[in-house]
């Protein structure tokens, strides 16, 4: 009997992470509810004039998506670190950066993907013009994947720290900013009748770069964290 190949192993990791997520539906619902609630906070805090809100809707939606990604990133590896599963992953013969990619992928599936899919509802709540909705969904789809990759780096770096708590936000928020800029710019462009394509292309390019580099950084960071 031979060892499972790297891809088969990653697929198993992915499946396990998804099963774990589905076991606690709260986990899946939470980012969405957070999204919904913060969307509700904005009219409360800023004053509910529809004109202003719709003007800022793309930015607000993107900022919330970013925060909700930030909040969940922290937990990507924490559970596995605490119960020793991470040690086992490091010792497995399969290459670490591939299995790590499966973790990120699972994270994106249960946060970014879902968020992107429900975002039109919230866009409507903030009176965003329908013209921007396609761009919003697409930019969120691409952008949250980049966010998950970058967030994974932060999570891997801080997973060994007791009470790393908010440190992760300090580490990765600066890296999130380009995504925010192009993401909200794409929606703005679509709203003002311009082509969102170039911005989406840039997000796609970031995603490719992230896919190539982030798993390596995450794998290195995990080895360091487990060693510490």
């Amino acid at each position: 009997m031979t060892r499972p190949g790297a891809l088969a192993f990653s697929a198993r990791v992915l499946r396990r992470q998804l099963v774990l997520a589905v076991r606690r539906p709260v986990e899946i619902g939470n980012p969405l509810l957070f999204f919904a609630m913060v969307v509700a906070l904005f009219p409360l805090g800023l004053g509910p004039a529809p004109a202003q809100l719709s003007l800022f809707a793309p930015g607000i939606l993107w900022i919330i998506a970013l925060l909700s990604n930030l909040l969940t990133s922290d937990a990507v590896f924490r559970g596995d670190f605490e119960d020793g599963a991470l040690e086992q992953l490091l010792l497995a013969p399969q290459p670490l950066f591939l299995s790590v990619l499966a973790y990120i992928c699972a994270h994106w599936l249960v946060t970014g993907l879902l968020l992107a899919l429900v975002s039109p509802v919230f866009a409507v709540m903030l009176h965003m013009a329908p013209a921007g909705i396609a761009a919003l969904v697409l930019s969120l789809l691409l952008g949250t994947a980049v966010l998950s990759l970058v967030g994974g780096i932060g999570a891997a770096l801080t997973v060994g720290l007791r009470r790393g708590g908010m440190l992760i936000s300090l580490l990765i928020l600066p890296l999130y900013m380009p995504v925010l800029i192009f993401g909200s710019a794409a929606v703005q462009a679509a709203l003002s009748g311009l082509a969102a394509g170039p911005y989406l292309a840039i997000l796609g390019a970031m995603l490719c770069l992230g896919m190539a580099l982030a798993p390596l950084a995450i794998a290195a960071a995990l080895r360091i964290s487990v060693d510490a």
Partner: protein
Amino acid sequence: MWSFFHKLGSPPWLYAISGSILRWLLPATLLALAVGLAWGLLFTGPEARQGNSYRIIYIHVPAAVVALAGYYVMAIAGAVNLIWKMKMADVAMKSAAPIGAALTFIALVTGAIWGKPTWGTWWVWDARITSMLILLFLYLGVLALYEAFDNKAAAGKACAVLSLVGMVNIPIIYKSVDWWYSLHQPASIKFIGQSTIDSSMLHPLLLMIAAFYALFTCCLLLNMRAELLQREARTNWVKKLAVAADSRG
């Protein structure tokens, strides 16, 4: 060549050589800073539009330039630490971070102070200013991450990974912020163009930039020396040094 690298890895040698470098570099730096300051403050005329407030340029621009360069120094030291497992690179990286953060802070604060008389506001979300703010966050991130680890060998490696990731991102951040700014074009606030700077103002500015580079080097070496001693606390050469320093009083 190789023997040089080998020596670089030897703490006593590095301690000695950095000591002899500092012996002339530190006075030279202080002198250059003093001359540059005097030149800029006393011997140049006011700028046509901004009057005397432009004199902040002699600290603002050097600090900003060196702060940015400092990040690359830090990240490259981190890469060397990760790839060749050189302990000295770890020391260098750890020592560069606080200096870079301090210089970024200077650039931000002097910029903000300069903004009040020139633009009438302490802060604008200009592309360059915003990316400088992000640079400060990157520095603080490295510092905080280092502090958060108990195991300092692991801390060094983790910070190396982080600063490398940051280095890949700095151009992206800069470009994106630039783009963002030109996209919105909120106000007609612009830096004074590079071309308008008079050569009588340019020369002291160049001197100050050189002086800040030297200052960065001095601080880096000083930090590295202190760090080296602490890491080598159990070796004989450090013990001898401690006893000698003690007997000197």
